[in-house]
């Protein structure tokens, strides 16, 4: 037995193991420390959020959407053990707009967690360096005064109200986007909830238990729907861009058509007969747009559609961390995009799913000469001393289709409102471009869609509306879109 040889080796092995442990400690404190400090399951995070005055959330006109007030309510049962030193300095969130912005602003409650802007921008609203509790005996005697930064949104609360009223008590969503910048102007949806009620255990249980309406689902930016015929404008724009079609290209529609090994049905059962692409958009002919997509080819179609960022998570809450809150859309690509799938996707059916936010972004892109800006919600962040810590701005942009193709598509979309179009007479004197949609889905009647861009000749605003299970686009979603557009253009 020769321990003189093996014992030192074992010792080196153990020292290496101990060193690894210390490396891990360093990794979790130094490298992952900020992430851990902001984790919603970390009680330390809530200590900070509750005992530091959290910043306000404001709309673009300075209206307060969320603010912190000293919690004067008597401590609830769960708080019984609360140290008295802390109890005097607790804040709670107040939401003066009620349920109007529940999904945008979100909620912040130490029992239920956070959502929306409250979650994504929490590290600004309650900065990590803010002191939740005195870290030493001396800080206890003179707590450092501190409050979080204010977050100002691009959103307009009065437009949001108009949108919410227009939508009424129908499940669905309305999103309006500034065409030049991608700034979100309103993002209303229904069902909603009152963020103040979240702290009430019973009300919360009711909210999460509701598996029928999903009131906690932010439909405007996280609701995935088949886009229906609204997607035809993107197929058309892609074909115009590639030169495989012009607005005057003609197609034969007999109501049904065998394309490859699948049958495409047109909504007009008797068929549109000889129809141009322009009329095909105005009258929403499935067969014409399926042919346009097939003529264009899978790879060119896919390239244009992917350029709209459909498969990416929009950085809606930038500079916040909330990308996980906003899901990407779905589109078949590569081998999955075979002939029948391409034909179906060409007119907006097939394995497609998009959010209302994405569709509004598509309208923004077409209105902005094919240049797409990622939608954004945060206009600026101001420190407690009034200094601007962050200024939101449109990203560099991504040219999805050429300016001429976008202009030509918009001109075709304007025909939707003219006589013979699917939204004829809906524009009420405004110069609009638009597209109706009714998306077949397994949950009952088709979802009613509408995409509007206005004014058609000099676009400023894009509006996307979905009303769940409400049938034709012009019946339910169309009037809502036009109403919101009127308010947005009249601002």
């Amino acid at each position, binding site marked *: 037995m020769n*321990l003189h040889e093996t014992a030192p080796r074992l010792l080196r092995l*153990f020292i290496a193991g*101990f060193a690894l*442990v210390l490396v891990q400690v360093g990794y979790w*404190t130094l490298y992952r420390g900020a992430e851990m400090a902001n984790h919603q399951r970390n009680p330390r995070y809530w*200590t900070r959020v509750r005992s530091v005055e959290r910043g306000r959330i404001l709309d673009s006109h300075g209206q307060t959407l969320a603010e912190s007030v000293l919690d004067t309510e008597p401590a609830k049962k769960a708080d019984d053990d609360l140290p008295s*030193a802390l109890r005097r300095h607790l804040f709670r969130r107040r939401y003066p707009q009620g349920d109007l912005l529940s999904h945008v602003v979100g909620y912040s409650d130490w029992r239920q967690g956070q959502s929306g802007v409250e979650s994504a921008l929490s590290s600004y609203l309650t900065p990590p360096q803010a002191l939740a*509790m005195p870290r030493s005996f001396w800080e206890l005697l003179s707590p450092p005064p501190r409050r979080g930064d204010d977050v100002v949104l691009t959103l307009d609360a009065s437009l949001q109200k108009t949108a919410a009223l227009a939508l009424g008590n129908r499940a669905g969503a309305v999103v309006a986007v500034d065409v030049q910048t991608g700034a979100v102007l309103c993002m209303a949806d229904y069902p909603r909830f009152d963020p103040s009620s979240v702290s009430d255990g019973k009300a919360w249980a009711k909210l999460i238990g509701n598996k029928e309406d999903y009131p906690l689902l932010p439909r405007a930016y996280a609701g995935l729907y088949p886009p229906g015929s609204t997607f035809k404008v993107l197929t058309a724009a892609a074909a115009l861009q590639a030169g495989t079609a012009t607005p005057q290209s003609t197609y034969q529609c007999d109501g049904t058509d065998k394309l490859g090994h699948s049958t495409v049905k047109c909504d007009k059962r008797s068929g549109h007969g000889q129809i141009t692409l322009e009329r095909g958009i105005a009258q929403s002919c499935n067969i014409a747009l399926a042919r346009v997509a097939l003529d264009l080819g899978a790879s060119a179609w896919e390239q244009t559609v992917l350029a709209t960022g459909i498969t990416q998570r929009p950085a809606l809450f930038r500079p916040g961390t909330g990308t996980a809150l906003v899901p990407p859309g779905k589109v078949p690509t590569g081998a999955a995009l075979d002939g029948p799938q391409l034909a179906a996707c060409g007119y907006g059916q097939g394995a497609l799913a998009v959010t209302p936010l994405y569709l509004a972004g598509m309208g923004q892109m077409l209105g902005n000469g094919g240049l797409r800006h990622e939608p954004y919600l945060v206009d600026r962040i101001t420190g407690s001393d009034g200094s601007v810590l962050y200024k939101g701005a449109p990203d560099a942009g991504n040219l999805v289709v050429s300016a001429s193709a976008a202009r030509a598509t918009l001109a075709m979309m304007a025909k939707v409102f003219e006589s013979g179009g699917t939204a004829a007479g809906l524009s009420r004197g405004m110069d609009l471009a638009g597209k109706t949609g009714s998306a077949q889905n397994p949950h009952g009647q088709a979802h009613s869609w509408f995409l509007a861009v206005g004014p058609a000749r000099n676009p400023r605003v894009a509006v996307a509306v979905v009303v769940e299970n409400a049938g034709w686009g012009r019946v339910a979603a169309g009037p809502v879109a036009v109403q919101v557009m009127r308010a947005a253009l009249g601002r």
Partner: protein
Amino acid sequence: MGRARERGLLLTALLVGLTGSALVAVVHGGTFDPQQADSLPRQAIVWAQLAVAAFGCHFVLARRGSDADETLLPVSMALTGVGLTVIYSLDPAQAQRQVTWLWLALGVLLLTVIRLVDVAKLREYVYVWGAGTAGLLLLPILFAKEVNGARLWIDLGVFKLQPSELAKLTLVMFLAAYLSSARGAAIAEADWRPLGLRLPSPRYLVPLLVMWVAAMVLLVALRDLGTALLFFGTFICVIYAATAQPGYLVFGAISFTCGAWAAAQMFGHVRNRIQAWLNPWPEEVLAKSGYQVAQGLFAIAAGGMGGVGLGMSQMVNPFTGRTVFAATTDLPFAALCEQMGLWGAALVVALYGFWVYRALRVSLSQPDNFRALLALGLGVLMAVQVFVIMGGVTKLIPLTGITLPFISYGGSSLISNFLMLGLLLRCSEGQR
């Protein structure tokens, strides 16, 4: 009177600890808990007991003119003091009880060092230790109630006994006795070279196989990955030391990993532990099996370089007053990292490292193989246990419910650790 070095070191350790815990008491009285306003005198009583006990031990050793290692007792007492401070910050009532255990533990230590038994004689009971280890480990399978998915404790009414804490000691004694015997020595004869690795002949692989099977039975029956890892790890390290064949380390690590992987496929409780290690962050894992892992990491992350300050741990949720489950037994290292930061953690790790180093040094100066292997085994046991629990808390390996020696709350653990210290002190006598 001799042992001046030990006295100086003990004084230093106690003074540093006392200053720290006085801070805890002030902070406790000031911010956290109005009911704990009398915390300073109570904390003082705890520390007075610690000091009296530590110096009592020291004086007994000094009076006997013992030349046992003079650094091990101060290092162990420093760790115990850190443990008391951490436990006090999480649960003052437990700290009071821990001091009571400490008295008992030091009693056991004294009984060991006053030569109640001749260490060399322990060698003769090789099968007693073997059977004892098996028996102690079987006890909880038969009698224990399940706590947190693991069956580790036997409720004796007065207190809960954790037999595996004693079994780890009997295992070390068995290994030392067996490997120093003629039969054990034969294991060292290497004559089989699969894949270019020097291994004993297949016949002598039997002990490895037996131990592997035993570890797997432990894993499945006790539902405890940590104890299985501790026992198996100690075993392969000691057998490697005795045989100088790295094949044991390599094959041991591979076979244990494979076994644990297979167990994870078959048994939900093992799978949960592994899953909580690989990714504790999904909401459904975080609420259950990943809860302890995540709360430990939150605490470590909160500590930063210098810690948030003694007594400021938010392992106790300031809003609910609830402490993270099993914080004082499974997660004291995380609480320690939070309060003392990376520097504090480095200090504690260094103290353990020093303890292990002294144990291995004692081992090298022993006159016979049994005592050498015994001292080495004690050092190995300490190292493996510290690594398994610290590695678990920092997500280096799966988190398991074994204790952090000298620091974790618990009577069985404290007594067994001081018994280890006592045996080591005894071994170290008469070296010079």
